[in-house]
């Protein structure tokens, strides 16, 4: 039984340290990237993956009781709340930033984007055929 306890400790600690690593990557990303819409990407990773790893580690430490259920509830709540947060923040950024075009490409209407995509496809297709020919 003693060995089983140690196995539980090691698995839980591994999960907890994985969560900690995700948080470290998140902080690094937030300092490394240079625009809000890019930084949001790093921040959202910690909100979903980091907290779920850490809380799953704590659940393994805790065993089967109501505390585990509450921790699971927090994780599930965050899976719903974090995308909504990111959506609200990106809408705030897009509406309030007047020189957004310096940071990313903006299409005035959908047809422009479709034309661009068609151009990219027509450039790619000959390449694909050539590679297929090589394979054959």
């Amino acid at each position, binding site marked *: 039984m*003693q060995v089983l*306890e*140690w196995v539980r*400790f090691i698995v839980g*600690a591994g999960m*907890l*340290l994985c*969560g*900690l690593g995700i*948080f*470290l990557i*998140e*902080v690094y990303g*937030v*300092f490394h990237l240079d625009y*809000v819409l890019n*930084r*949001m990407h790093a*921040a959202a990773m*910690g*909100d979903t993956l*980091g*907290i779920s790893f*850490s*809380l799953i580690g*704590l659940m393994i*430490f*805790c065993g089967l*009781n*109501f*505390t585990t259920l*509450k*921790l699971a*509830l*927090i994780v599930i*709540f*965050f899976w719903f*709340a974090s995308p*909504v*947060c990111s959506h*609200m*923040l*990106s*809408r*705030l*950024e897009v*509406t*309030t*930033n007047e020189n957004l075009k310096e940071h990313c490409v903006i299409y005035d209407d959908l047809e422009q984007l479709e034309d661009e995509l068609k151009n990219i496809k027509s450039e790619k297709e000959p390449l694909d055929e050539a590679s297929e020919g090589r394979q054959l």
Partner: protein
Amino acid sequence: MELQEKLTALQTAYNGIYWFVLFILALMLFACLIRAVKGPRIADRIVAVNMMGTMVMVIIAVMSLLLDESYLVDICLIYAMVSFLAVVVLAKVYMGIYEEKRHEIHDRDDVKETGDGK
């Protein structure tokens, strides 16, 4: 006797990992605070505050196991809801402030134009 010693070893291991996680999370919390102070735009600051909320939630959950007080997990759950609400409300409020300012500038320009016309 031997069993008791091993049990205490397990307990020290648990305490060690809890304190280690708390220490690292506290350091990263300071990094997020620096980001929130530095962030050039409002959205930057809100993102940093949201990250801090997530880390504080993990700290509270670890503390609930370290101190063996299960009611702290309830506080953690409520903290999650409040931080979600805070982000949504702040985003909405700043959008409203921006719209108001833009309307003010618009109105002032209109008044100036009509004044020049006269």
